[in-house]
């Protein structure tokens, strides 16, 4: 028995070592990656500065297309932020054990994606330096913001989501931070000591931790749903033909989950490769995620079909005009979206072999997010281009500033992620080990049973 115990200790040590491999001192490669990403982000910051100093004239927006790439990006990143909620929240609640290795990565993604998303309204508005007008603060003007505006709901929802998801991430990381604290020295130790908040790993702490995690998971899911519903209401509450639709809230939520889950799959592939987690992220994990993606893809396709069907059947002249315009001017993008989100993804994911192939899953997951970006473009730009007054119809194409900032958002996100992975345990030690413990066989009488009866 002592031998076994020793072996176990050694295994755990090894495992900890492996799991925390990401926070070893930075290598040249890592520095190079960070510099490249930083440069792109810096370029985007310069582009933003150009926009701030000369005005939105440097962006492609015009009359009538007053919203463009910034709002597309905003919706896209809010959508991506559903990854963490989906994996940790929903899967935790549904007790899917295979979630464990990717949990932390997904939660971090949520925080960073929503932070990136929150930047876009600031970039988007004409007078960024007056953005504080939106915040309900007592001020020298004696004025409050307008609570009837969906944008204010948006502001509230996004802030709640940022706060909630950060807490969620932090809470889940506590035990791991304690592990890191115990393993580090010097100034680092001090910082991790503060961050770990005196976690000692007593039974009581674990029990509270478990309860808190479940409560947070249960709380974050409705917040996530509300966030994306509210984002959709930014559009649906208007009179713009093609936006004014009751289906928008569920449609956006499904779209957000769709891109969120796809992003998690992409992330799984990257993490698996980067941190050699082949042992923990196995084919069955991809299989499961594939099934999830399939279901959401079906839901999304159904909602899109319902939306288009209504427009076609109702045939209200201006709404039909918007659809025809979309299909005509943006036929390539529309085709791409429908193929990528439905006609390729759905049949492909029906096959077990596809779901279990890491390469194909990577391809599909990236395709889905490209198509979801396209979808947001098609939702926002064509209806604005062809609004009620035909004389004022117009066109939109992004400028270098908008493209730079879009690229910068992606790079900035990746940079934040890279930094995070360097300083925090990117694989949740706690959850993985909990999962391992649960998998152990216990001898009860003559029979051997699982430590905990749960589906994987």
């Amino acid at each position, binding site marked *: 028995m002592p031998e076994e115990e020793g072996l176990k200790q050694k295994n755990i040590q090894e495992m900890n070592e492996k799991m925390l491999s990401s926070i070893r001192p930075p290598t040249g490669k890592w520095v190079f990656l960070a510099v490249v990403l930083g440069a792109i982000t810096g370029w985007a910051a310069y582009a933003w500065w150009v926009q701030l100093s000369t005005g939105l004239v440097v962006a492609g927006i015009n009359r009538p297309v007053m919203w463009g790439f910034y709002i597309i990006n905003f919706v896209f990143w809010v959508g991506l932020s559903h990854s963490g909620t989906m994996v940790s929240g929903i899967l935790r609640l549904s007790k899917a054990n295979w979630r464990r290795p990717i949990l932390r990565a997904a939660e971090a993604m949520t925080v960073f994606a929503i932070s990136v998303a929150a930047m876009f309204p600031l970039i988007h508005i004409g007078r960024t330096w007056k953005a*504080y007008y939106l915040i309900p*603060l007592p*001020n*020298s*003007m004696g004025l409050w913001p307008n609570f009837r505006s969906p944008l204010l709901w948006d502001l509230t929802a996004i802030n709640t989501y940022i706060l909630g998801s*950060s807490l969620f991430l932090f809470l889940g990381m506590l035990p791991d931070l304690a592990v890191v604290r115990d393993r580090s020295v010097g100034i680092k130790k001090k910082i991790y000591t503060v961050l770990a*908040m005196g976690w*000692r790993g007593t039974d*009581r702490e674990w029990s*509270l931790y478990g309860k808190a995690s479940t409560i947070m998971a249960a709380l974050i899911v409705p917040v996530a749903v509300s966030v994306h519903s509210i984002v959709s209401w930014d559009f649906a509450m208007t009179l713009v033909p093609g936006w004014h639709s009751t289906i928008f809230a569920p449609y956006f939520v499904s779209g957000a989950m769709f891109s969120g889950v796809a992003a998690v799959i992409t992330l799984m592939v990257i993490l698996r490769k980067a941190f050699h987690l082949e042992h923990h992220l196995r084919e069955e994990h991809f299989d499961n995620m594939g099934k999830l993606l399939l279901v959401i893809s079906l839901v999304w396709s159904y909602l899109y079909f319902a939306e288009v069907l209504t427009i076609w059947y109702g045939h209200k002249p201006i709404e039909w005009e918007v659809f025809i315009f979309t299909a005509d001017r943006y036929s390539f993008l529309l085709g791409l979206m429908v193929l990528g989100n439905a006609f390729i993804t759905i049949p492909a994911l029906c096959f077990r072999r596809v779901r279990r192939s890491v390469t194909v899953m990577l391809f599909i997951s990236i395709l889905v997010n490209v198509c979801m970006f396209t979808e947001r473009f098609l939702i926002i730009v064509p209806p604005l281009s062809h609004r009620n007054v035909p004389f004022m119809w117009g066109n939109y194409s992004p400028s270098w500033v908008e493209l730079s900032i879009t690229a910068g958002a992606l790079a900035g996100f990746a940079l934040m992620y890279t930094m995070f992975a360097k300083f925090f345990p990117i694989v949740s030690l706690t959850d993985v080990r909990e999962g391992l413990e649960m998998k152990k066989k216990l001898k009860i009488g003559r029979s051997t049973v699982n430590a905990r009866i749960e589906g994987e």
Partner: protein
Amino acid sequence: MKHKRIIIISALFFAAASGLLFIYSFEAIFYFTVPVVERSPEQPIAFSHKKHAGKYSINCLYCHRYANISKVAGVPDMELCVSCHRFIARKKPGIKKLIGYWERKEPVPWIKVHDLPDFTYFPHNTHLRAGVYCDSCHGDVTTMDRIERVSRISMRWCLDCHRERDVSIDCLQCHF
């Protein structure tokens, strides 16, 4: 039990701190970019309202002659100053300076104390007619040697007065 409390308190503290930081970063930008005009700047000529309006009881409208007929109160023209000071107190250094300006045909570059943003329409005549007299906003200038801003000219300050007197607080009344 203790740890639980610590966790909760710390979490709340972090949340509150980050939220406030977010909010006050904007407020800070606002604070540092608003026009900062000195409340009582030194003028090119040490003109004393205390002497003119106080000691000699010259009516405000004698110099600020447009206040009751125009949106601007009007700075007195140089001729008006000189018309008296050609004879009065000629020896004083301030008056010498004034005469100097006059002889060079140069206007005195007074420094504005009460400065409203350009997007605010404030008609002096309407306020005078409604019985809001000079001292309501400019304070008791008869006691001021150097003119000083006594009221905080902010929108809420305007609104408070408008509400009190039950006049329109429609935005387009002043901003258009």
